[in-house]
C-alpha cells in the first residue's frame, strides 16, 4: 500500500531532487530553500514515520482558525467562523450540521473556490505543511486536483454536459502530469474500473446525461482521485442518491481510501452516514464548530445540545415508534446572526441564561472530544423536566 503510494507520488521524488540539487548548486539560490523548508520538514517527517512504521498520526491538513466571510450588501459576514480541525492520513473526518451551518462554505473555503472578490478568508490552511491561504491562483492550481480532490453533491450539474466523461477525467491529468496521450487514456480507463464502472471503454465516450446518478457520482470520484491526491473533500456525496446506491458509493470511498491512505473530509447532514464511515466528527452550527471528537465518542456520548438534539430527531431505523425530538426555531442566516454569546441559545430557550458562557470556547472534555460553551452541562430536553444531565469532566 505504502509503496504504491510512494511510487506514484511524483511530487515527493521531485522534492528530493530539488532539495539536493539546490543544496549543491549555488548559495545564490539559498533563499529558495527557505521557501521549501516547511515542505521538506514535512516530507522528512513523513518518511521517518513511514519507515519507522509508527502509528503516530500525522495530519495531512490542519485548518487553523479559518474564517471565511462573504460580502452581502457591502458588509462581510462570516459563514465559517474560526474553525480549526485536522485530518490525518487514512482518516475520514465528517463535518455535520443542518443546511446553513456553513459546512459547504467550509469545504469550498479549503479548496478556495469562493469568488475572490466577495470573499475574505483569514486563518490558515496548512496542507502538508504549507499554508494554502497566501497562495495565488496559479500556485493553488498546482494543489487543487493534484493533491486535493473534491466530490460534489449533485453529479449531474457538476459534470460538464458537453464533454465526454473520459475527457473530463483526463483533464485532471492534462494539467498535473506529464503523461502521454495514450498513458492518460490508460490511466483514465484504469480509474473508471477502479471506481467500479463495468464498461470503462464505453463509459469513457459517454456524456454525463447518459449515465445514472450512481454512475455519475463514480465518475466524479474518479475525477477527484485521478492524481492520487492526499485529501478528498466530499460535499454531500450521497445526498442525491438512493439508499442502495449510497451504500455502494460509501463503500467505494472507503475501499479507495484503504488503497491510497488519503484523508477524506466528508460533508454531510446525515448522521447515520457518518456512523457508517467516519473516524472523526466535526459538528458545525452557525458557522462554528460546536463539538468534535471520534465517531464512537460523539455518537455514544454526545454532549453539545445541538448534537444531542440532532441525534434524537432521527427517525432511526432501529428505535421503535416514538415521538421524535424537535429543535425549536431555525438556523439563523449568516447575515442576521447574533455573533455574541452562545449561538444555540435561542433554540434552547428553557435553559437558563447563566448556563451559557459569555464568549463560548471549545472545551476538551475528553482526549480529542471538544465541546463549545458550558451550556451542555446544564442541558436537558424540554420534556425531560428540570432533570439536570451533568457530565463529569475528566
Amino acid at each position, binding site marked *: 500500500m505504502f509503496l504504491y503510494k510512494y511510487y506514484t507520488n511524483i511530487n515527493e521524488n521531485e522534492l528530493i531532487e530539488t532539495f539536493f540539487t539546490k543544496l549543491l548548486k549555488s548559495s545564490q539560490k539559498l533563499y529558495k530553500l527557505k521557501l521549501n523548508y516547511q515542505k521538506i520538514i514535512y516530507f522528512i517527517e513523513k518518511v521517518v514515520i513511514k519507515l519507522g512504521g509508527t502509528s503516530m498520526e500525522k495530519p495531512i491538513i490542519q485548518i487553523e482558525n479559518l474564517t471565511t466571510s462573504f460580502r452581502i450588501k457591502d458588509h462581510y459576514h462570516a459563514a465559517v467562523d474560526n474553525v480549526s480541525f485536522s485530518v490525518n492520513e487514512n482518516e475520514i473526518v465528517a463535518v455535520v450540521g*443542518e*443546511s446553513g451551518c456553513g459546512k459547504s462554505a467550509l469545504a469550498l473555503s479549503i479548496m478556495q473556490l469562493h469568488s475572490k472578490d466577495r470573499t475574505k478568508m483569514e486563518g490558515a490552511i496548512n496542507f502538508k505543511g504549507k499554508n494554502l491561504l497566501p497562495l495565488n491562483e496559479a500556485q493553488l492550481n498546482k494543489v487543487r486536483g493534484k493533491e486535493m480532490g473534491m466530490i460534489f453533491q449533485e453529479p449531474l450539474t457538476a459534470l460538464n454536459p458537453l464533454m465526454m466523461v473520459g475527457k473530463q477525467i483526463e483533464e485532471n491529468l492534462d494539467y498535473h502530469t506529464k503523461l502521454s496521450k495514450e498513458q492518460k487514456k490508460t490511466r483514465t480507463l484504469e480509474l473508471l474500473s477502479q471506481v467500479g464502472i463495468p464498461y470503462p471503454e464505453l463509459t469513457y465516450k459517454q456524456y454525463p446525461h447518459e449515465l445514472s446518478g450512481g454512475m455519475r457520482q463514480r465518475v466524479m470520484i474518479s475525477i477527484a482521485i485521478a492524481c492520487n491526491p492526499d485529501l478528498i473533500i466530499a460535499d454531500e456525496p450521497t445526498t442525491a442518491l*438512493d*439508499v*442502495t446506491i*449510497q*451504500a455502494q458509493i*460509501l*463503500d467505494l470511498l*472507503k475501499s479507495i481510501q484503504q488503497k491510497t491512505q488519503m484523508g477524506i473530509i466528508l460533508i454531510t*447532514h*446525515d*448522521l*447515520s*452516514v457518518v*456512523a*457508517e*464511515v*467516519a473516524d472523526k466528527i466535526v459538528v458545525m452550527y452557525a458557522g462554528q464548530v460546536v463539538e468534535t471528537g471520534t*465517531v*464512537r465518542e460523539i*455518537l455514544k456520548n454526545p454532549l453539545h445540545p445541538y448534537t444531542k*438534539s*440532532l*441525534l*434524537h*430527531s*432521527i*427517525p*432511526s*431505523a*432501529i428505535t421503535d*415508534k416514538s*415521538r*421524535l*425530538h*424537535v*429543535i425549536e426555531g*431555525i*438556523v439563523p442566516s449568516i447575515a442576521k446572526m447574533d455573533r455574541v454569546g452562545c449561538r444555540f441559545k435561542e433554540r434552547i430557550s428553557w435553559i437558563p441564561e447563566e448556563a451559557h458562557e459569555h464568549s463560548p470556547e471549545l472545551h476538551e472534555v475528553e482526549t480529542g472530544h471538544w465541546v463549545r460553551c458550558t451550556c451542555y452541562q446544564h442541558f436537558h430536553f424540554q420534556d425531560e423536566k428540570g432533570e439536570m444531565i451533568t457530565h463529569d469532566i475528566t
Partner: protein
Amino acid sequence: MTLLKVEDLKVHFPIRGGFFRTVVDHVRAVDGVSFELEEGETYGLVGESGSGKSTTGKAIVKLNKVTSGKILFEGQDIANYSSRQIKPYRRDIQMIFQDPYSSLNPKKRVLDIIAEPLRNFERHSPGEEKKIIQDYLDKVGLSPDSIYKYPHEFSGGQRQRIGIARSLTLKPKLIIADEPVSALDVSVQAQVLNFLQDLQEEFKLTYLFVGHDLGVIRHMCDRMGVMYRGRLVEEGTSKEIYNNPQHIYTKRLIAAIPDLEPSVREEKAIARQKVSEEYEQSYSKYFDEKGRAYDLKPISTTHRVALP
C-alpha cells in the same frame, strides 16, 4: 374497514419514437399494483426513485391518468371518473407534497392558500373563513397572525405545515403524503412527522405515506409495501419487512440502511456484500424473463411477497 382499495393499478406513459413519432412503447411507471388501506392506518410505499411509488400516489388523487385498474374509495371506483365526477371525492382525498417551496404559490398570502379548497367547496363569509383558517393554523402550530404573510416568510418546516393545514380544511378521510419530509433538515423533519402523527389522532386520518427514507417510513407506518420498477415486491407490517425481509430486493434495501452504531459497521459492510452477491446470483429467481417482479403471494396473513 377498508377505506381505499387499489386493484391492479396501471399507469403507463407512452414513449414516442420512430419515424412518425408514434407510440412505440410505454413506460410502465405503475404496472399492476394492488393494496388496501384500512381506515385510520398509515400505509407506507417505499422504493427507489423511479419505482413508481409517487406515480401511484398521484394516480389516486387523479394527478396522473390511470391506464387501467381500479381505485375503490369507500367502495366506489373512481379510477376513471371525469373531473366533474371526481369533485366530491376531492374533499375526502387530499395530498401533501414533497417540496414545501414549490407547493405553495409564492404570490399568495397564507390566508388565500389555505382558503383555496374551502372556497372551492363551501361558502363562508370572510369573517368565518378567517376564523376557520386561524383555527387550522393553530392546529399545525403556527401563529394565527401569519395569515397575511407570504410563504417566503416561513421556513421549510413551517411551509410544510401550511401545506398540511391546507389539506386539512376540507376534513379529508385520506391523505396521500408524497415524501413530505425528504426536502427538510432532520430537525424540521422530526417536527413535521410529529405533527402528522398528532393530526392523525385528532382527525382520524388515514395516510398513504410515500417515501424513500426507510427510517421515516418505519417510524410512521403500520404497514408498508416495497415497490420496484412499478411493481410491489413485498408487503407487510413494518416489523415484518424490517426484521424478516423475504424478497431479495427488500433484503438489499434493508441492508443498505446505514446504522447509527459505528461499532457494527464492519459487520454491516460484510452483510451488505453478501446480500449484494445474493442479489446478483438469484436475480432470475425473483424476477421473470422481462425483469418484472412476480405477483404477490401471501406467506402469512399480513405478509405478502412477490415470488414465482
